[in-house]
């Protein structure tokens, strides 16, 4: 009876995951979808704790440990998720993803120890043949979980700036060698499960591989990598589903594995690049070299705050193009402030949002929404590109690669073919940056040297605050 109820609970949970994901891909229902999936998860967890029985019909014990673990994880998780700044969201997702990967790896370790213990009592070839599929699943779960954990930690470190890009010649080949060793060791372990030391070899090599895999990939590509690691962890969770013949882990894991892979590809498509291109790091990894080749070129002109304020106050239409610089400076509120002041002066203000502006798709929408910018003022790329022709002033706040005309004109450029915001169609372009340093892709931007462009150097928040004050005085 109890097991039947548990089966029903797992069934319901699996369905909530599917419905939740479906709702998450629709703006109006997204938040409810998240809650639906969370509800299903809670049900599955509670059901497992109180109703689970193993094949021998034995219940779970160690309730003290389980509840202590749930409480500690729950409290830390909630606090961390509530406290984190909106700009640091991508890091947080990466961190949580790593935790899931580590969890899957730990399960594999414990389960293998269990098997190793059994083997020390009974190592007949009959028994070995019986457990071989289980060992294979354990090894796979361990490899995928550890790679996901190590990779996510590196991605986390890179996004918050603690870890720099690092690559050396032949790294890709070395990575493949590590992967081959891990897989080879796994195969060998399946053939001869008594060689239990191999499990630790697999663990170590997989961790190293995870680190080396993410190390050379540029920071701008991190969302893609996190999304990929996300689907890895999904597959690792599905391995757990195989292990315990647990359908909810299986469906949840595979669902995320498949959806995550598709999402990864969609993100690549938004940047008009292939996944292979991102992973081998054709410009993420070689960025110093590319930047060195190009070097600064031509002259750019600076504009004073007063002049900028003047131009904007007398414009009919101003389009703001936000980028990562806005996020770093936490300038979204000042940006909204400027928008309001300009509105009061009868200037039409809209925002042009590039799909990959910032460090994650949708990053800018979240950020500006936090500052109460009205939804209809945010224009997606296609709409915005129609608007630029009629705009008097385009104010670019810390965006660079997404407005680089080289993507359209220079086939040699690493970002050639990426759809961009065509800001150069506006009458005047004002670019706020901290310095002339190239953007994340590490390439020069011709836009900055065009006659209609002027530069307004400084931290986005400071500049916007000063601009607000100046505009008020005009």
């Amino acid at each position, binding site marked *: 009876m109890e097991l039947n109820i548990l089966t029903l609970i797992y069934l319901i949970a699996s369905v909530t995951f599917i419905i939740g994901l479906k709702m998450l891909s629709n703006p109006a229902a997204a938040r409810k979808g998240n809650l639906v999936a969370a509800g299903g998860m809670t049900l599955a967890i509670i059901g497992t704790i109180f109703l689970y029985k193993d094949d021998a019909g034995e219940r779970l014990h*160690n309730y003290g*440990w389980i509840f202590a673990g749930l409480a500690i*994880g729950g409290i830390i998780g909630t606090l961390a998720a509530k406290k984190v700044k909106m700009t640091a969201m991508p890091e947080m997702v990466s961190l949580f993803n790593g935790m899931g990967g580590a969890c899957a790896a730990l399960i594999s370790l414990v389960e293998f120890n269990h098997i190793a213990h059994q083997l020390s009592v009974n190592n007949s070839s009959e028994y070995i043949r019986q457990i071989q599929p289980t060992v294979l699943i354990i090894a796979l779960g361990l490899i995928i979980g550890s790679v996901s954990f190590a990779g996510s930690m590196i991605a986390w470190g890179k996004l918050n700036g603690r870890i720099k890009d690092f690559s050396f010649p032949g790294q890709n080949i070395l990575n493949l060698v590590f992967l081959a060793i891990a897989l080879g060791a796994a195969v060998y372990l399946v053939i001869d499960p008594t060689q239990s030391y191999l499990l630790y070899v697999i663990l170590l090599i997989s961790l190293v591989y995870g680190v080396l895999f993410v190390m050379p990939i540029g920071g701008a590509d991190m969302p893609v990598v996190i999304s990929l690691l996300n689907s890895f962890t*999904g597959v690792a969770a599905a391995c757990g589903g195989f292990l315990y013949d647990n359908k909810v882990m299986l469906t*949840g894991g595979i669902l995320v594995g*498949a959806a995550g892979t598709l999402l990864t590809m969609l993100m690549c498509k938004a940047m008009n690049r292939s996944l292979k291109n991102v992973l081998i790091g054709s410009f993420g990894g070689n960025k110093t070299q590319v930047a060195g080749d190009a070097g600064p070129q031509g002259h750019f002109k600076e504009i004073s705050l007063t002049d900028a304020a003047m131009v904007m106050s007398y414009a009919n239409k101003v389009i703001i193009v936000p980028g990562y610089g806005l996020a770093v400076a936490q300038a979204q509120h000042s940006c909204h402030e400027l928008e309001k002041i300009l509105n009061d002066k009868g200037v039409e203000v809209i925002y042009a949002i590039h799909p990959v502006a910032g460090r994650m798709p*949708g990053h800018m929408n979240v950020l500006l929404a*936090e500052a109460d910018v009205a939804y209809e003022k945010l224009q997606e790329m296609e709409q915005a590109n129609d608007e630029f022709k009629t705009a008097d002033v385009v104010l670019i706040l810390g965006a660079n690669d997404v407005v680089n005309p080289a993507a359209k004109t220079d086939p040699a450029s690493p970002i050639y073919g990426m759809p961009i915001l065509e800001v150069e169609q506006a009458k005047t372009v004002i670019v706020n940056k901290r310095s002339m340093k190239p953007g994340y892709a590490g390439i020069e931007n011709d836009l900055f040297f065009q006659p209609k462009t002027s530069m307004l150097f400084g931290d986005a928040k400071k500049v916007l605050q000063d601009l607000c004050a100046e505009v008020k005085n005009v």
Partner: protein
Amino acid sequence: MENILEWIHANQQIIYIVILMIFVGIEVIGRVPSVLHTPLMSGANAIHGVVIIGAIIVMGKAEANNYLALILGFLAVILGTLNVVGGFVVTDRMLEMFKGKKTVQKK
């Protein structure tokens, strides 16, 4: 060859689930607007936290004198819970902002 066919036969249920879930996963998010990429990723991240169930089973089955299993299982439960709780809360916070936008709109 016979072994493989036998394995497929013995595990056909699971194989069906895997194949169907792959299609469901792809189908379900096929038309997601790019604005929602990040929250969707974060939501999916929380859902694979279902691995916590494996951790609970490991923990619940560990014998009282097997300290390695107890410690590793305990860690796994903590990490899995972090993934689930943190994942859902972060996603909710992101989506809350999208909602905030709409209430402003209505006013």
